[in-house]
């Protein structure tokens, strides 16, 4: 690894001042778990890293607002999310998704903000939080803005963030009685990045699914909502015929890519199956061990 500067600003404003929207060799680093891999592979050679550790306390809180929303500071670690009592109680889907997200050593240092901003489609939190309808708060020298997480991703490893913008928090609306599930499918080893991620949330009204959100990731170039699937699920009962049609629709509408995890043809089959299993899991009807 070739030497580079490492600066440790004490405040968010100072950190943003050190970022340069024109210079791609300057980047912020939180947990560094993804960035270090890129640096070791020589894919990214920084001239300067802005280490965010010193501004951590202020931005690493996980709390529930008076409106019942879960607010996750961007510098919270994945382990914090995994072990937070409110998360376990209000968003079990998030907690359950953590145990197979890489390994404890990674979860102990990787941060929520980095996991969202990295833009690698082979990650678990972006599809989970997208299906939960999360919003992110973004700060730049121009001020603060909020946007739905689902609008963050522009393509493969691409987000709409400017180089001098930082995510400061993710806010998840109350789940209430909505059902939720995330299915992580790996094809090589258990702690691998996903081959396919499928997340679904929906309400139930008289046995019919309402306002469903269905998200596919990992097999696609970015986290993607499956609108045709959502149309099929809307107002329908979770019966095999419906779920099979929805699985077919998912395989039809998602643009699936071949990569080292498997061929597109194989991943389409996985999506067909796991869309159905995700709905079943959300309803507590699928308890099998996930591959």
């Amino acid at each position: 690894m070739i030497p580079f500067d490492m600066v440790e600003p004490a405040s968010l404003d100072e950190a943003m001042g050190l970022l340069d929207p024109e210079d791609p060799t300057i980047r912020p680093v939180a947990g560094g778990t993804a960035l270090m891999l890129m640096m070791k592979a020589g894919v990214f050679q920084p001239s300067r890293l802005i280490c965010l550790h010193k501004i951590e306390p202020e931005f690493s809180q996980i709390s529930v607002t008076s409106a019942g929303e879960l607010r996750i500071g961007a510098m919270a670690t994945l382990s914090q999310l995994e072990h937070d009592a409110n998360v376990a109680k209000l968003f079990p889907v998030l907690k359950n998704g953590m145990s197979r997200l890489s390994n404890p050593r990674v979860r102990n240092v990787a941060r929520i903000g980095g996991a969202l901003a990295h833009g690698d489609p082979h990650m678990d939190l972006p599809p989970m939080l997208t299906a939960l309808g999360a919003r992110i708060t973004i700060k730049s020298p121009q001020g603060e803005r909020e946007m739905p997480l689902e609008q963050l991703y522009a393509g493969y490893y691409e987000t709409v963030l400017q180089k001098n913008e930082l995510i400061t928090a993710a806010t998840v609306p109350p789940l209430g009685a909505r059902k939720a599930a995330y299915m992580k499918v790996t094809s090589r080893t258990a702690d691998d990045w996903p081959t396919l991620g499928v997340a679904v949330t929906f309400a139930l009204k008289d046995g019919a699914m309402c306002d469903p959100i269905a998200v596919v990731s990992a097999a696609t170039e970015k986290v993607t909502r499956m609108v045709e699937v959502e149309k099929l699920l809307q107002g329908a009962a979770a019966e095999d015929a419906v779920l099979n049609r929805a699985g077919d629709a998912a395989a039809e509408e998602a643009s699936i890519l071949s990569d080292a995890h498997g061929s597109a043809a194989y991943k389409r089959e996985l999506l067909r199956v796991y869309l159905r299993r995700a709905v079943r899991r959300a309803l507590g009807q699928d308890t099998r061990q996930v591959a």
Partner: protein
Amino acid sequence: MNQVGRNIPRLEVRAKVTGRADYTHHVRLPGMLYGKVFRSTMPHGRIVNIDTQAAKELPGVYRVVTGADIQKLIPEPYYGPAFHDQPILALDKVRHVGEPVAVVLASDPHVAEQAVQLISAEYEELPAVYDEVAAMQPDILVHDVLKPAGTFADLKHLKGRGGTNVALDYHLRRGDADAAMAKADHVFEHTFKTQQCLHLAFEPFVSVAEPGDNKLTLYTANQSPSFVRIEIARLFGWPENRVRVKVPYLGGGFGGKLYIKLEALVASLAMLTRRPVKIALTMEEQFYMITKHPTTFRIKSGVSKDGKIVARKCEVFWNGGAYADIGPRVAQKSGFTAAGPYDIDNVSVDSYELYTNRTPAGALRGFGIPQLVWAYESHTDLIARGLNIDPVEFRRKNLLRDGRPQASGTILNDAAIPEVFEAIVKRMNWNAPFDHGAGTLKRGRGIAIALKAVISPTTSAAIINISADGSITLFTGTVDMGQGSDTAYALIVAEVLGVAAEDVRVIHSDTDVTPYDMGTLGSRSLYHMGNAVRLASEDARAKLRALAAEAGLPEGTNYPPIEIFKKRFGMQAGNIIGSSNFVPSYTPPDAKGMSENVTPFWMVGGSGVEVEVDTETGHVRILRLVNAADCGKPINPAVAKTQLTGAAIMQLGFSLSEAMHLDGGQVTNASLADYKIPGIADIPPMESELVTAEQHTGPFGAKGLGESGTFGVSPAIANAIHDAVGIRITELPITAEAVLRALRAKEGRPLDDE
């Protein structure tokens, strides 16, 4: 005091878990330069130009070295254990992506790394060959002429041969396989393939060379320090005693760190600069050093109607990559067991080691045997199924037993094949009804058993020093890379000399003080070095008795050693040195590959597996993995058991997830991020059973065990999948996608290619 057979923790365990054990990575010497390798991006090409100017000009760069510089020091700078075919740095041609072409030296390793990026090379591209079967044709030649090293008598006939990629062709003919096949009631023929994978020790390759006054010292992560010393001395035209090779503990070897790896390079650089030089590879660079042979194995059997195998023909093609390394040994020494642990009167084996334009291949925990077992135990299962005979019953009927000749003609002796097999069958509860699952989750079970001969002939020497206070030091060239050899030898010494193993000091692998050992490889150490250690201990014991007699003490005196020394020398003074050279007897195979004494001992290992297959996704979950092996009489049963478990886990990775992917000769997944080894969550419920037998020629009845746990894992899984869902996977690794594709093809609705 009974020492052998005690369950004791490894002697070095405290030093390791507290981070105080020595590794080559810790070596820092005054004035040391760090080398970083510039590697070929071309799989096969003539070097037209290497531009090092910009790298030389980078501040902090001490020197940039190319093959031409090496040649000024060593006119014929080629090395290797079987062939002198590997240049220290590429000369006229490059033969695989990742081949070292130049080295930057700098006091700061980061400067060296940066400078490497400023080097450029121009090549005239040559057509490349990657597949072992394609390489049988002489259309594309990796080497113009073969250069056997002369170390091995059976390679001498290859000297000067050109127009071929075949680095060794081994043939065995027992009986008349063709005639027997023609008369057989049933004939089965299949082809199996294995992938390229690698050792991936968690301590990547690292070597340091320190030039001295009329000598050179190497600190290196290597499994065969005696060979390194001989080979470096040969390259420099020196006597052996001017080269010192020191090996501390190893962070894993598995056959990767055998023979010469970085040593010739750092030695040359140190001699060119007269400064200490260190090269430490990254995890990613290991993908361009040494790998496990991909293979194609065509296997054909003739079977009688009552289920007896009457003939077997084996054609094995070993993809050796760009340089031979120890590949020709793998092709031959594994080749003669290619027909498996079965009693077959008519066997023919053709085993070919081939040059291709890939990273070289060598030995990996099993010396080629796991590739062979994958084929013959999958094939054997298919025969049983084809004949509608229970796979256990079919094997029982055909197993080779002590007193019967193995394919080579050597009479089997001290090989617990039936015992290991029955131990697995019993644990699998094979005769009980088995639940094959329902719906989309189907279950199956499979079994596999294998035989391996230890490499022969090889030599080990040991020295015992009894100091005047009676304390004992053992000097041995075995490299302890986690297998617990230091501890096993301490137990043997302690048993002979009547002390506690914990009180024996073991000095390993420093060629200035430790005597010759062929290498820590192929499960040979406990048998060969173990025997040498026992003999040296007995020699020391005899000398101590003689010393007591000289001191005027009666035979069988109960004087402790310190009193004997005092009585003989008048004070606490003097030493007793016990020593030994151990080499077992051996008869080289004749022109038909036959020998009456082909190996000093046999290894036997096998596995039983239960799986659950998700028929909608192809995912295979291993519900149970049983491993058993013949361990002779274990010296340290607790450590022996961990060898079995560790080997099985390693083979689990080679079975299910590990594969190097190539694109135009370039490895596209050269990192732990994309080359996936099993993690803790991938480890299935495992049972390991040491089948205790007696190796009558082994030290206290023991035999080697480091590889036996790998043998049966892959075919047992494939056999279990077949049992569960009726499909046969013939190529490793067994991915979920491969299983789903086979399922869908069987259902007549195959998946698209892309």
